[in-house]
């Protein structure tokens, strides 16, 4: 089973390109900060996003603020969020999971590591 759409929220164009390559089988919605990502999620054409890959350090609205906003809205609270960040301390991981993230992957990541996480979260998602 595959997710309908994956929302990538990261201020690095390199990472967007990387996710495009890795997740070729999924349509991807791009956002470069938290605020833009919220705008994308509010658009009717992107209501079928069912996985979010989220960076932490971004301009305008950071990852934790975005996560709080997503988990605070009933219409988006169910979407699994994978934090993909360079912040690798145990406290960072705990903070992310406590805020509602489903998984926490540290950059630089091995592609197979992220693929496994995504596969485990998207099993059972109907297309």
């Amino acid at each position, binding site marked *: 089973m595959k997710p309908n759409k994956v929302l990538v929220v990261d201020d*690095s*164009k*390199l*990472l967007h*390109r*990387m996710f495009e*390559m*890795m997740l*070729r*089988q999924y349509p991807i919605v791009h956002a470069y900060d938290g605020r833009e990502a919220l705008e994308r999620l509010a658009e009717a054409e992107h209501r079928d996003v069912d996985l979010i890959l989220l960076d932490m350090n971004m301009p305008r609205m950071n990852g934790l603020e975005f996560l709080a906003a997503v988990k605070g809205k009933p219409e988006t609270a169910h979407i699994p969020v994978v934090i993909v960040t*360079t912040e*690798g*301390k145990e406290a960072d991981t705990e903070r992310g999971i406590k805020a509602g993230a489903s998984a926490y992957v*540290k*950059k*630089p990541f*091995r*592609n*197979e590591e992220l693929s496994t996480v995504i596969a485990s979260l998207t099993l059972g998602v109907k297309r």
Partner: protein
Amino acid sequence: MSAQDPQQLAAEVQGATVRANLVLQELQAALERASSLAGSLQQTKASRGGSGQTQPQMEELTRRLADLESDRSELSSRLAEFEQQTGRLMNLYVATYQLHATLDPQEVQSTIGEIAVNLLGAERYALLFWKSEGNRCEIALSQDLQHDRSNIFQNGIYAGGDPAVDATLADGVLRIGPIEGSEALAVVPLTVQGTTVGALVILKLFDHKEKLRPDDRDLLDLLAAHAASALFAARVYSTTDRKLKTLESLVKLVRRG
């Protein structure tokens, strides 16, 4: 797209990995079913008092199961290697693509920084370029240099002092630490047509990345080969574009006059 297109190639490799993974999962499931069948056969045999007739069949079945298990294990380790290779190729492709995706010098510099941070795991780095006059390098881009205790990267200038950095700036050879007397973990020469125009100095990795791995070497080589030429092309374009716009404005003024 031609068969040689790297993007297509990477996609094909990735597709093959996914398919191989599925085959492996099916094999694993079949093996588990066979193993369970063998278990129940064994139980039946035991409950019937161990008929001598079924013994050779059981032995044959057990031998074939062991062969299958060994094949599965080998396939599994080959698949893991294959996945690693795919990931490595993808990183190289994306890094190269992104370096040459723009003609904006600032954006090329940012990409070099993003490769250092996101793909290599550099927490602290400095991107150096020789200044046109004097024997010093400007720090074009950096991260976390305020925590560098060596004090050789000061006020946006590197004036020498680290033996590995100085050596690479002089001979254009990639150096990977530890290097005696140097804080640098890696010094990547940035060369254009055989001339070293600067260096990327990696000073510290994130705590969760213990050390540079052997496959990071490919990325460092790629940066050495592509970063400077991409930046040089972008700068040339930017200068030419600026001059062209100035000339166009002048022509407009002359026409109006």
